[in-house]
């Protein structure tokens, strides 16, 4: 199988869906000739033209609002928000309009909209360009939230997101864009709401999202040399959530650690801990459930402080060591 980058996998998914369905179009800031701030849409305007690859004014409210309107009129827009931090400017359109319309019209209207947007720290872009705000959208009924951790998942999940009749917020991690992974040339889809066990283990389950999946796998590799077999579960979509896979894994291992980049306070980890405590997995727990997550601070500009603000491989290793001690 060939190896391509996460960014290329996303571009392939967009291209395939643009070719497959003429209702699909892209809109966002500098996504045309410039190819997007991270180069994801590079070359697409040449192939599909400005009608389907639309550069927009610098207005997130306009991007999401227009996309919502187009979706209601039967199109399948894929909007790009250059940094997920800027999604705040389109929040009303996304949360109060896109997420609500299908419910408020009793199912008569649907909003097949995808908002693609990069999140995460690690690029030295400071507090306004480095956040991981995924859990805000997990909290809003009516939105689906997808967070791929590798190239293969990114492509399969994005294609499913574009074909979904509901608004989907699709979070891409900046540091993953140039990471390579095995992606088949033939078409495939990954359904939303299906977790993936990235590594099998028997001593502890790590539930990790986004870039924390690869860091957890690295930690698992280190720990395996100490005889600790870590199972790494990647939910892949936070909404809908594949509860069964997570619960079954923890029932098997009896221990759980949740790892995510977003701030621990009010973060997705709390949701997983709650899920496990309310489930049958509770009776199999042989240690407290811990979270390794972002510090409750704005991401610092200083590189050292930036890396200290979010979980690193050693933080995960240390937490696991204490939980299995």
């Amino acid at each position: 199988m060939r190896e391509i980058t996460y960014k290329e996998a996303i571009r392939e998914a967009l291209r395939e869906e643009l070719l497959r369905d003429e209702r699909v179009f892209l809109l966002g800031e500098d996504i045309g000739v410039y190819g997007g701030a991270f180069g994801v849409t590079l070359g697409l305007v040449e192939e599909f033209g400005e009608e389907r690859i639309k550069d927009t004014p610098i207005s997130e409210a306009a991007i999401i609002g227009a996309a919502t309107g187009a979706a209601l009129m039967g199109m399948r827009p894929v909007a790009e928000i250059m940094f997920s931090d800027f999604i705040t400017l389109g929040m009303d359109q996304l949360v109060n309009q896109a997420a609500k319309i299908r419910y408020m019209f009793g199912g008569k209207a649907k909003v097949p909209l995808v908002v693609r947007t990069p999140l995460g720290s690690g690029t030295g872009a400071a507090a306004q360009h480095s956040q991981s705000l995924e859990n805000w959208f997990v909290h809003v009924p009516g939105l689906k939230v997808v967070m791929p951790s590798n190239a293969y998942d990114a492509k399969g999940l994005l294609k499913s997101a574009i074909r979904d009749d509901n608004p989907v917020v699709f979070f891409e991690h900046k540091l993953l864009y140039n990471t390579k992974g095995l992606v088949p040339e033939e078409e495939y889809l990954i359904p939303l709401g299906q977790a993936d066990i990235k590594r099998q283990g028997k001593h502890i389950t790590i539930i990790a999202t986004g870039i924390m999946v690869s860091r957890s796998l690295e930690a698992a590799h280190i720990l395996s040399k100490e005889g600790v077999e870590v199972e790494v579960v990647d939910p892949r979509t936070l909404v809908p959530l594949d509860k069964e896979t997570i619960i079954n894994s923890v029932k098997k291992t009896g221990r759980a650690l949740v790892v995510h980049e977003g701030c621990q306070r009010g973060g997705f980890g709390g949701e997983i801990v709650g899920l496990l405590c309310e489930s049958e997995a509770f009776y199999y727990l042989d240690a407290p459930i811990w979270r390794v997550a972002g510090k409750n601070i704005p991401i610092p500009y200083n590189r050292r402080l930036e890396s200290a603000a979010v979980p690193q491989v050693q933080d995960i290793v240390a937490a696991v060591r204490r939980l299995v001690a």
Partner: protein
Amino acid sequence: MPFVMTMPKLGMTMEEGTIHKWWKNVGEEVRQGEILLEILTDKVNMEVEAPVSGILKEIKAQEGEVVKVEEPIALILLPDEKQEEAFNLEPQKAKEEIEPQKVKEEKVKATPAARYIAQQAGIDLREVQGSGPAGEIRKKDVEDFISDRGAMEVDLVPLTGVRKVIADKMLASYTSIPHVTLVTEAKASELVNLWIKLKPIVEQIASTKLSFTSLLAYFLIKVLSKYPYINARLEGDSIKRYKEVNLGIAVDTPEGLLVPVIKKADRMGLGELAKAIEEKVYKAREGRLIPEDLTGGTFTLSNLGMFDIDFFTPIINKPEVGILGVGRIREFSGQKWLTLSLSFDHRALDGGPAARFLKALKEVLEDPIKVII
């Protein structure tokens, strides 16, 4: 004011009692005459009735606690106080907080998995040692506990109730009294013949069974009344010697060893004595003795002959100073023989006097007719 219920004095000699079991919980209604709790005194369980009707407001003495007679054990809220109490809830609470906390049963720290397995296996987590970082019990600890238990089946009997009383008394006696045991053999042919002759007579006249123990007791009492230095009690700084014999009889019961006392036994004829012993033994085995039945002894007789025991070294029933152990009857040299072992408190008397008493007893048992003299 709520009614203050105190530890009742259930017998002349009772100075303290152990709360054995509360039949009611705090907050429950109690009616006068209804059984409220059980008290343990000198190995006897006594049911205690509620002295008044009302609501059990507070238990001041928990199960297992030893309380002196007349000391408070519970508060009972009288019917006309119920209303008033409702308004006074606040200050009442504040008061409770000031009171020093009694030792509470500590909650067990265990993981959910450990709890689940323990529950499935019917294991009390309080018995399991935790190995977790915070001392918590983990799954493995319970599994280890189960496999250890499998290796050696243990039937855990808590040291409570009569067992606890016996344990405490034996330890106190054995560790505080310098025991000396003298052993001798007595010819028993005459005694056995006499027993065989007397059995139907006693049965006819006194309409009671004459056990060999009762016959032995009869002769023992006769000798004891002539040897007050061993028919005695050592209490505090004084030795109390008695002419009157209150003879304790060691009885093996389902609950454990009990020693009912035959009071003023020296005034009884053989029939009367046999009847008294028969009655006390029966009551002991049925668990129907009252505290009075178990106190005030001046000497104790323990017969294990029926279990084919040759001889043994009995432990003195404190504060008495002597106890006679009787073994089985054996036949050799054309004679029947009986082994007598006398344990005495060397603080109260010395070897010479104790030996003289045992010799006198031996002579009477060998030739029972001497008792007439």
